[in-house]
Structures are given as C-alpha cells and as structure tokens.
C-alpha cells in the first residue's frame, strides 16, 4: 500500500513561488521533510516487543520520492503499510487465510509462517512439517508452535485493528516552514 501526497499551490497559500527553480526547491523541500521525518521516526520507534529493529521507518524514508515537479508537489512513499498506519484500518488475512500470524520470538521477526514450509527450505516436498497449529477451543486466538520443541512461535489472530496515526507525516506548519526555509 502506498501513500501519495498531492500538495497543490492553493493548499499552501501563496508561498509556492511562480519561479520554476523556486517551485522546484519548494517541492523538493517538502519531499526532504517527509523523508527526514520518517527517518527520525525510525530512530525514536524501537520495536515494542524488544525484537531487533526492522528499520521499517528508515526503509519508508528511503522510499520517498517526487513523481512530478513544478507547481504541484506530488510525493510518494513506496513502502507497504505506511498508508495503513496513517489512515488506520483493519488488516485481514490474505488469500482466504484463516488468521494473521504475529511473531512471538525475536529470531523469526519478519519471517512468515509460509517460509517455514519444506518448499521454502529447499526440500522437494511442500510439506509443512516444522510448525504445528494449536487453537484452544472457543479462544479468539491460536498459536503456531515448533513441532519439535513446542515453543510458541506465532500468535494467530483473525484480524488486527490499526489506529490512524497522523504523526506518520509532518504537520502542515512543518511543511510551510520547510518551504519557507528552502525558498527564502
């Protein structure tokens, strides 16, 4: 999911200048502000479960780009999930799956259950012989555990609600300040 911002001159009052170079400077400054904001967010948002950093927000910062120049600043963030964090929403399992899998151990963070299958380990068969599902009767949650050690590896939930977080992007005042500094 991508996030695309379209900032037109009328949104910015009269601060976008008619001069081509200054208009270019203004749109670049907005793009730079978004990238810097996301990079700072990466530094201040440690993983809540204490897992190793995935540097998700730094990746998002590096994915920021302008797709158009001129008087309309169009900025895109090509990072999956950023729009969901900004707008909020409900995440449901993909491809008709029964549940979402949330990793419970640091070493498997960023690894999907499907990557444990024989297929992904390079075996000839597509057997899924490493993980075992455990779903207590009547419980809204289930687990995937290691078949051998019985260690719980994933929490299974039918859906996840993500609250909208407008701090994902800089504020309007920050955009205006960035543009002013760039062109004055």
């Amino acid at each position, binding site marked *: 999911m991508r996030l695309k911002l379209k900032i037109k001159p009328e949104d910015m009052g009269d601060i976008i200048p008619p001069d081509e170079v200054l208009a270019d400077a*203004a749109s670049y400054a907005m793009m*730079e502000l978004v990238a810097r904001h996301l*990079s700072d967010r990466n530094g201040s948002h440690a993983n809540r479960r204490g897992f190793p950093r995935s540097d998700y927000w730094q990746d998002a910062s590096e994915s920021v780009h302008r797709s158009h120049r001129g008087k309309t600043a169009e900025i895109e963030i090509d990072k999956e999930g950023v729009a969901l964090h900004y707008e909020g929403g409900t995440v449901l399992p993909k491809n008709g799956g029964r549940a979402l899998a949330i990793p419970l151990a640091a070493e498997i963070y960023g690894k999907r259950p499907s990557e444990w299958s024989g297929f992904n380990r390079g075996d000839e068969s597509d057997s899924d012989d490493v993980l075992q599902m455990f779903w207590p009767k009547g419980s809204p949650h289930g687990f995937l555990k290691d078949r051998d050690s019985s260690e719980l590896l994933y929490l299974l939930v039918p859906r996840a609600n993500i609250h909208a977080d407008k701090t994902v992007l800089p504020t309007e005042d920050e955009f205006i300040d960035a543009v002013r500094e760039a062109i004055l």
Partner: protein
Amino acid sequence: MTAAEKILAKVAVGSRLNSVQWRTIQAGLRDRASFSAQVVNVQVVKAMQRAAAGHADGALDLSEARKQIRQALLGEGYHRPEGQEGTIVDLMSQRRLDMKLKTDVQMARGWARMVDGMSPGAIYAFPAQRLVRVRDRRVPRDWESRWRLAGDRVGWNGASREDMTALKTSPIWSALSIFGNPFPPFDFNSGMGLRDVPRKTAIELGLTTREGVAKMVEEAKEAKPPEFNGTLAVKVEPDEGEYLKDRFGDQVNVEGGQAKWVPDAVPNAIRAGNAADLGGGLTVDPEVVAGLGDDILNLLPSLCRGGRANPILDLLGGGVLSAIIVGGKVTEVRHENP
C-alpha cells in the same frame, strides 16, 4: 525514473565472479548489471531483479520477495549447498536473500534520490549533504577514518574536514563508496545514509557561498537529465576489455574501446547458431531451439557449462553434454565422450 524502474532497466548478467571480483569491474558498467555473486543462471538473476523491483515499488514485502526468488531457484533445480545451509553462500537462505534485496533496493533508491537532489531547485535549497548513521549496527565501522581517507584522496574538494558534510557535487562521495558510487549504500550493510544540508548551513560550514550556490544552480540547469540504460556503453582500456570478455563471454560487447552489456546474450547466441561459443559443447537441434522461450535457452548453458554441468564433466573426464528437450522442458541430459 523510480528505484523500481532503475532495477528493471539493468541487464541481467550471470557470472561466477564473487563480490570482491565484481568490485574490480568499473562502477559505470557494474551499476548497469543486475547480478548476484557467483550466480551463473540468468533466470535466477532475473527473478532476483523482479523481486527487488517489486520490493522497491512497495508491492512486495521482504518475505514475499524472498518467496518469489526461492520459487525461481527451485524451478531451476537449485539445491542448497550441503553443510552450508543458512549461510551467505546458500542462495535460499534468508541472510543471503535479504542482503541481496536490501542492497539492490537501497542502491536504486540512493541513485534515484541523488538524481532528484541534483535538480536546480534541490541544489538551490540543499546544495550539500551529510553522511549520517541511519541504521544501528552491532559493530559499527569507523566512518570518520574513511571520511578522512576519502577527503585526502580528493584534496577535500567541496568537502568539510570537521563535519562529514560535502557539496553534492564533491568527488568525496564516490571516493567514500566501496562500490565507487556517489550515493548510498556506501558499503554492504553499512547502516550509513545521507541527509540533505540546507543552503544556509552549507555556507556557514564554508563549503560554498551565495555566489557558489547560484553557479551550481546554473550548472544544474544546463546539465542533461541523467538517463539510465543498462546497455549504455562505457569506455574501457584494452586489457580491461579482454578481462571482461574472458569473464562474461557473449554477455558483454567490447568494441572500439567501449564495453556494454548484451541483454539475453545466451538465447540470442543459441538462436544464431553460435551455441558452440557458449562452451561446454552445447549441442541443440536448431529446429528445437526455434520453438523455445528465453527461459529455457538461458537454462541450457548453465546446465552444460556453468552450474551443474561442470562438476559432472569433471567427473566424466570431459566430453560433450547435450540437453534433450521435450515440450519446451529439459527432460534429459546426455553425455558423449570426445
């Protein structure tokens, strides 16, 4: 051009070169190639290229991108190296795939940001940039020493000695990179990136003046928009050209002191009846070849020359391996003594 488009514009090149050997290929040519250390099979390289582009575009997360590459590897009959599963030499390992995908995507994004940052308006607002840590590392490298070494090498042209900051046009950026690129990443898994530095700060640091910025803007206006094309030729010295031909065969064209990558060299060579040039004594019926797709044709040399055939030929004491193709699939490989 977006990062994803940049990745897809490269020419997929198969080679036995390891990452250190790849660094001996000049940056201009290396940056136009999509490759992975010691991966000969072009189909696998192409699958990696597609997955990296999908990840750069935000369409695939790392897990999905890894899955696509693993499927391609299995489709090409890849077997994990015994006793080295999970290590960097194992093409299916998460470690290897993440390194490949992250480096490719970061490099393409670094290039795209550099190009955008050289527009007249971007230069006016931010004529300089600073090297900063953007990802934590358990054992961080000493980038201040590297900065001093790179600065000495380029005579501190447009670069600050006190602060790891330099004009965007300074040669220090290429000197800093083990890849020879003026954009991040500057090393594998380095955790270092760039921050734009505003005009006011660049002037305060003594890197430029108001007049200097105006001159840079004028130069940026005059500059041709950088284009990226995987088959663009670069200048090479005669011995460099010989080295390239020796390492890449028909995948590189060296002519008149210039070298360029040749896309789909392998299928084209087979179709043109030059299969013998591909080495390994590849023998394929031309009538059969006419009906085959690039994916199958790309597979043949790796079967007969590269990946799996070499050890087989070594065991057999040389000879000729020929592929039997039924319905567009290699069903049997035959061996004949010379």
